[in-house]
C-alpha cells in the first residue's frame, strides 16, 4: 500500500513537471547537472524536475525491496512473479524517463512514460490488494454471471478504453496531437464506465468487494469529467496565449492526471474483484463441442 501511495506521489510530481513545462530544465540524465543526488540551485523548473527524479529514485528502491521481500516470504508463485514484474516495469519506466530527457521529449516516448507510470501504479495497487488481509482471509462470495456482455467483459473493456484515453491525453499533453480525439473519446469512456458501474451496482450490490470499487469508479469518473472540462478551459480555451504556466491550468491539469490514475487503478481493482466474485457462468467456459459430448 505504501508503494502504491508513493507511486501516486511520483505520478503527481510527474504531472507537475509536464504542466510547468519543466521536463528539460535538467538537461542531463541519469545525472542531474553532473551529480546523482547533489541538490542543485532549487529554482524555477528545476524544483519540479529534480524532485520528480528523487522521488522516482526512492520508488525504484522501494520496489526493489518489495520484490526481494516477496521472493523471500511470499508462497504464492504468481505473486512472486508479479512483484518481479513490478520491478522490471519501474526500471523500464526510469529508462523511458531518461529517453524523454535525452531525446528532447518526443511525444511518443513521453506518452509511453506517462502510460507505463500508470501501469506501474495499477500493479502496485494490485499487489497491495493481493497481499491485504481481506484478500487472504476472505472466502469469495461467488455469483455466476448470466448476463451478456458479462461484467468481466465490461471491466476489461473499461480498462481498454481508459488506456486509449490515457494515450490520447498523453499525446495531447506532450504536443503530439490535437485535443479533440481525447475529448471525443471521453464520451466513449463515460458510456463504457457508466455501463460497467451501473451493472455492478445494480446486479451485484450484495457483494461488497464489487459494489465499493464500482461506486468509487463512478464517483471518480464524474470528478474526472469535471476536471477534464476545467483543464480544457484553462489550457485550451483561456490559456492558449499564456506567456507562462498559469496556476489554474497547472492545478486543473495535475488534478486531471492524478484522478485519471486513481480511476484506472480503481477500474483494475473492480476487474480483479469481478474476476474473483462474479465469474462467467459455467456454460460459457465449455466449448460447444464438449458440451454436446457431455449432453449425449
Amino acid at each position, binding site marked *: 500500500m505504501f508503494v502504491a501511495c508513493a507511486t501516486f506521489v511520483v505520478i503527481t510530481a510527474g504531472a507537475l513537471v509536464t504542466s*510547468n*513545462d*519543466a*521536463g*528539460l*530544465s*535538467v*538537461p542531463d540524465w541519469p545525472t542531474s*547537472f553532473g551529480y546523482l543526488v547533489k541538490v*542543485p*540551485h532549487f*529554482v*524555477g*523548473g*528545476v*524544483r519540479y*524536475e529534480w524532485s520528480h527524479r528523487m522521488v522516482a529514485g526512492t520508488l525504484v528502491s522501494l520496489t526493489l525491496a518489495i520484490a526481494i521481500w516477496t521472493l523471500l516470504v511470499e508462497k504464492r508463485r504468481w505473486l512472486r512473479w508479479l512483484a518481479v514484474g513490478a520491478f522490471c516495469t519501474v526500471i523500464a519506466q526510469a529508462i523511458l524517463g531518461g529517453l524523454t530527457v535525452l531525446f*528532447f521529449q*518526443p*511525444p*511518443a516516448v513521453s506518452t509511453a512514460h506517462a502510460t507505463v507510470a500508470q501501469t506501474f501504479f495499477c500493479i502496485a495497487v494490485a499487489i497491495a490488494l493481493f497481499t491485504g488481509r481481506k484478500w487472504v482471509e476472505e472466502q469469495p462470495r461467488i455469483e455466476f454471471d448470466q*448476463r*451478456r*456482455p458479462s461484467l468481466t*467483459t465490461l471491466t476489461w*473493456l473499461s480498462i*481498454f*478504453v481508459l488506456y*486509449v484515453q490515457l*494515450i*490520447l491525453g498523453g*499525446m495531447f499533453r506532450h504536443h*503530439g*496531437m*490535437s485535443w479533440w*480525439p481525447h475529448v*471525443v*473519446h471521453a464520451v*466513449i469512456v463515460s*458510456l*463504457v464506465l457508466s455501463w460497467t458501474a451501473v451493472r455492478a451496482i445494480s446486479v451485484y450490490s450484495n457483494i461488497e468487494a464489487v459494489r465499493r470499487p464500482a461506486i468509487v469508479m463512478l464517483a471518480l469518473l464524474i470528478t474526472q469529467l469535471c476536471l477534464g472540462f476545467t483543464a480544457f478551459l484553462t489550457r485550451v480555451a483561456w490559456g492558449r*496565449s*499564456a*506567456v*507562462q*504556466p498559469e496556476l489554474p491550468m497547472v492545478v486543473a491539469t495535475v488534478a486531471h492526471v492524478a484522478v485519471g490514475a486513481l480511476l484506472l487503478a480503481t477500474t483494475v481493482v473492480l476487474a480483479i474483484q469481478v474476476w474473483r466474485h462474479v465469474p462467467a457462468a459455467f456454460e460459457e467456459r465449455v466449448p460447444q463441442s464438449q458440451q454436446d459430448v457431455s449432453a449425449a
Partner: protein
Amino acid sequence: MNTKISSRILVGTLALSSLLLTTACNKNTEQSTNKMADKEAAPAPAATPIDPATVATVNGSVKFDGTAPKPSKIDMSQDPACKGSNEAENIVVSGGDLANVFVYVKDGLGNRTFDVPKDPVVLDQSGCKYHPHVLGVMAGQTVQIKNDDQTTHNIHPTPKDNREWNESQPPSSPAIEKNFAREEIMLPVKCNQHPWMKMYVSVVKNPFYAVTDKSGKYEIKGLPPGDYTIAFVHEKLGEQDQKVTVAAKETKTVDQNFKAGGE
C-alpha cells in the same frame, strides 16, 4: 440485453477507440518523419560577387492596426535571482509601431550565394529575459549565448529543420557558441527553468534581413538591383509578403501593416 446487440456495441466501442488511437499514432509518425529529415547541410559554395556601386536599400516601418493587446505581466517570483519587472514580448506595440518583426528577402536572389559572416551574433540572457527577443542570423554563422544573470539558465531551441539541443548555463560561465545549419524562420528558443523565457531565431541563407525596432522601423542594405519578395514575419501575427523592385542605388520604402489575428 440481446447478445447480438451487446456484441455490436462492444465491437463498435473497440473500433472507435482504436480509430482514435490510430489518429494519434499517425500524427506522431508525421512528426517523427519531420525530425528524421534533419540531415547535415552540404558546405556552401563560394559567394557570388555583388557590385557595391549598384546596391540598393529597402527600408520602412511596420504598423499594428487596431488596439494592441495589453502585455501580460510576468511573475518571476519563483527565482529570486530574476529581478526587476518583466512583461510578455509576444506583441510589442508602441503608438501603433510593431517591434520584433523579422523582415527578410524571401525570394528573388536566385542561385546567389553569400559568405557567412565571421563575427558572431550575440544572444544575451539578462534579467531573466532574452536580448534580443527576435534574432536574425545566417545559416552557419556563430551565435554567442551569454548569461549575465546570477542564476542558471538552460537554452533549448526547438527547431523543425535544424538539430535540437538543450544546454544549461550557470552564472559567470563562458559563452556558449552554436550555429544553425539550415534556413528556418522563427525558430523558437526557450528556457525550461524559467518558463516565461522565450525568443525566436530566424536563420536565413542571405544577409538581407532585419528586425523591426521599438519604433517599428527596419532597414536592409546592400541589395543588388532586382525583383524581390520581402517577407514580414511576426511570432503571433504570422507572415505577410510584398513584391518589390529595386533599381541600382535606389532607396525604396516598403511599409507593412499587421492586424490582430494575423490578417
